[in-house]
């Protein structure tokens, strides 16, 4: 690791101001990506600004038809939150599948969404549930937020403060873990909103990061059942291909995981 200056911010405003002062500052929101990358000397931030101890950024709250997860809440807290399990059990389940226990104690939803790894779990839920991402500057709809591999609508220095998930009528997540990394080789989140809209998002599959799957959405809109997806054909075009999963295998997984997610959603 190269030398860096570590700051522990006590408020979002302080974090933003520290960021502005640093020449090449980075926010640390759990460090499950940034720190390994720094240890491999692939990143050399001048300043590392830790958001993890900002009290206003930690907590899970359900209110009416919305579940709000503050940005620095670790995955473990979401996975075990009574509020999350009651409002959107599929989301708590998704959090329980991220990485391993050490990752879940440190990694945060804000960090995951800001990094937007194409194989991360949270983007699938965020997109499928039509969540709203609130930052220190504005709110961003999930449909506008994800912009490709590791690319998001966030501006330089912008800090996610919370993510609000509309409570759906039904939702389910099915993940096929990457055998080595345990990221999603492909994970599919299916949701039926209370107004009857169907949204399906797949992570780990596309070369462009998390994606909606319109063909499956249409099939499920007509008939919310695993069997409804039987006749759907997913193109391998534009999907990732590597030693653990060719693009046509991932195309198959999008379909199979969607069926299992629907079965889990009930």
């Amino acid at each position: 690791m190269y030398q860096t200056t570590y700051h522990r911010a006590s408020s979002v405003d302080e974090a933003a101001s520290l960021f502005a002062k640093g020449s090449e500052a980075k926010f640390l929101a759990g460090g499950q990506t940034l720190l390994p990358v720094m240890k491999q000397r692939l990143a050399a931030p001048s300043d590392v600004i830790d958001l993890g101890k900002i009290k206003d950024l930690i907590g899970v709250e359900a209110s009416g038809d919305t579940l709000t997860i503050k940005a620095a809440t670790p995955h473990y807290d979401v996975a075990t939150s009574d509020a999350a399990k009651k409002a959107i059990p599929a989301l708590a389940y998704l959090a329980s599948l991220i990485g391993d226990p050490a990752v879940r104690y440190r990694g945060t939803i804000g960090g995951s969404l800001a990094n937007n790894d194409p194989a991360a779990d949270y983007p699938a839920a965020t997109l499928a549930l039509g969540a709203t991402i609130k930052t220190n500057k504005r709110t961003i709809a999930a449909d506008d937020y994800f912009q490709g591999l590791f690319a998001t609508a966030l501006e330089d220095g912008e800090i996610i403060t919370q993510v609000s998930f509309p409570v759906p009528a039904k939702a389910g997540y099915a993940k096929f873990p990457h055998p080595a990394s345990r990221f999603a080789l492909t994970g599919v989140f299916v949701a039926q909103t209370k107004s009857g809209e169907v949204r399906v998002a797949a992570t780990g599959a596309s070369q462009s990061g998390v994606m909606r799957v319109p063909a499956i959405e249409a099939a499920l809109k007509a008939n919310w059942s695993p069997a409804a997806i039987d006749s759907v054909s997913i193109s391998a075009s534009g999907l990732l291909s590597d030693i653990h999963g060719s693009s046509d295998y991932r195309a198959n997984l999008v379909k199979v995981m969607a069926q299992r997610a629907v079965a889990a959603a009930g």
Partner: protein
Amino acid sequence: MGVEGIGASVVRKEDKRFITGKGRYVDDIKLTGMTYAHFIRSPHAHAKVKGIDSSAALKMPGVVAVLTGKQIVDDKVGNLICGWAITSKDGSPMKMGAWPAMAPETVRFVGQAVAVVIAESKNLARDAAEAVVVDYEELPAVADVTAAIKAGAPQLHPEAPGNQVYDWVIGDEGAVDAAFAKAANVVKLDLANNRLAPNAMEPRAAIADYDAAEEHFTLYTTSQNPHVARLVLSAFYNIAPEHKLRVIAPDVGGGFGSKIFIYPEEMVALWASKKVGRPVKWTGDRTEAFLTDAHGRDHVTHAEMAFDTNNKITGLKVKTYANFGAYMSLFSSSVPTYLYATLLSGQYNIPAIHAEVIGVYTNTTPVDAYRGAGRPEASYLIERMMETAARQLKVDPAALRRTNFITQFPHQTPVIMAYDTGDFNASLDAAMKAIDYAGFPARKAKAKADGKLRGIGVSCYIEACGIAPSKAVGSLGAGVGLWESAEVRVNPVGTIEILTGSHSHGQGHETTFCQLVADRLGVPISQVSIVHGDTDKVQFGMGTYGSRSAAVGLTAILKAMEKVESKAKKIAAHALEASEADIVIENGEFKVTGTDKAIAFPMVALAAYTAHNLPDGMEPGLKETAFYDPTNFTFPAGAYICELEVDAGTGKTSFVNFVAADDFGRLINPMIVEGQVHGGLAQGIGQALLEHAIYDANGQPVTASFMDYTMPRADDLPSFKLSHTTTLCPGNPLGIKGCGEAGAIGASAAVINAITDAIGKNNLEMPATPDRVWRTIHAA
């Protein structure tokens, strides 16, 4: 057996320090004035080194030196060698390409060192390494064994035209051809044995300390065989004469074969320590481990087996291409020859066998012994062949094996090995009973009704362990003798130190070796300590690999114990005024048989050292040494059966049951044996389902981290059901065969046989990843 004697599952003495963080590994050691090495490694699989500019690095604060491949060659440090000579079928010796410890001119695999930075801290060394500019001229590279043998392939070594290390044969080709000419059925099989990265938990590390006044080196290193390291460093690498080089292998966190070999890094550390006049430490990181620890396996094989009308095997012919990587590692030549082709008879009566093995250089990390070393490749081939044959001949796979089992011992195979004992039917019976083999068709039918693909797979393995005797291995080309030494030192107060040439790096010797002493003398194991891993303390030894430490190392201890007991009996007889023949050892006492006269062992020890009242002419003291050279290999064998289900939607395999029935001869500590089997099975299953060290066509490693290389984890593995059937090994007095590698040798075939049974298609390569299995299920 006593609560701490042979056969008792004594809790491991060494675990207190390991589980409380008090182990002392190489990286825990800090010497005064110590500097730190960081290697500059080639990013290219094949390139000329045109120049190295270290001027900027040398100006950085804290940088002590930047040393290059040219300097180490100029200083006449010897090239790395392979210590087992193999002769090709045309009579020519194997073609060993020159391997300097750092490359002066040409790099031949990604990760090969070209220079080293020595600095005041690890981080400073790493910073400075980034400031060293190496000018490479890239050359075409080849990573795949079948591509490397083609005409026009990039050539690695001028010494080895066609990238060929050797073309070696064993067996009677004429007899095999005759058998095939008369065969009722011939079964053919093509398969690959996937390359594995060993991944010991502790990465390799070395500290070299040169004492200019004494012209003496001390090397702390992660070695499975410190004496062999000292011998090779002295005799071949010109580091220092043996009496001027002390090699210490302290606590070592796993080896699996990869820490047998002498690597460039410890040679460079020794040389650099003298150069800079200060101790030099190098600790590898995980990426360096993936790039530079000798890999395992990597065979491509075509085999054919001939059967008569009674389904008896009449002949076997095998042609294997073995990928050596870019250089010949220390014992690499023996692995695909004498440790592989000599086991091709498996557990079966095969009258004629012929095997040809072609060793091939590629621009990849060198390949050498890895848990099982040749025997997993042989076992996988034979057991896949038996399963394929059963399917082709439409007979039950277990029944076909029984038809061909060797049942008379000793049994001379057509490929050198003479099996001393065994009972293959007993192991298979035990495994079939444990898994309820008879009930499988009903379970498969029920699974099918539930939409699941269920399969069962058998693997009956045999291996040759002990890697001895010296005369035999010498006649086959080994450059060293393969025996073991031991010294038993009884202290004046009756405590005992056992010095052994074996080396424990996870095997539990500090417990099992004490159990032998407890068994013989009746003293508690707390009174016994094991000394190993230091060439200044232990006179000589060959180290630990090939499941040899109990069969060979412990037998050496037994031989030394017998000498100690003999002398102690004389002392006791003298003290008790009895005849030596009447002295028996019971519960820590030397007794006159049939009387109540006795003297406690500590009093015998004290008498030996006070020497006030010893028999006439007896030397004082109680310390004995023994060197033990066995008469044959040992032959552990067993049967593994795996039952599993495949998810047709994803190709994912889930275990239902995995049973192992092993014959290891006598067990010293069944709990430790169980642990060894669990670990071996994990690695065998890892090879079958998960692990694969992959290179792209240009020789770039694709799997150089745990993000890409799939190490087995607890949730990838079933809960194993183990049992033992026992035939005592006649080749050593304790009847021990060895247990360290069996799991890794036998498991892979059981898994692939079960998956191919489940999906109803026979051709499936390892690792059987979900993608690969799914593709095979849905292939036309």
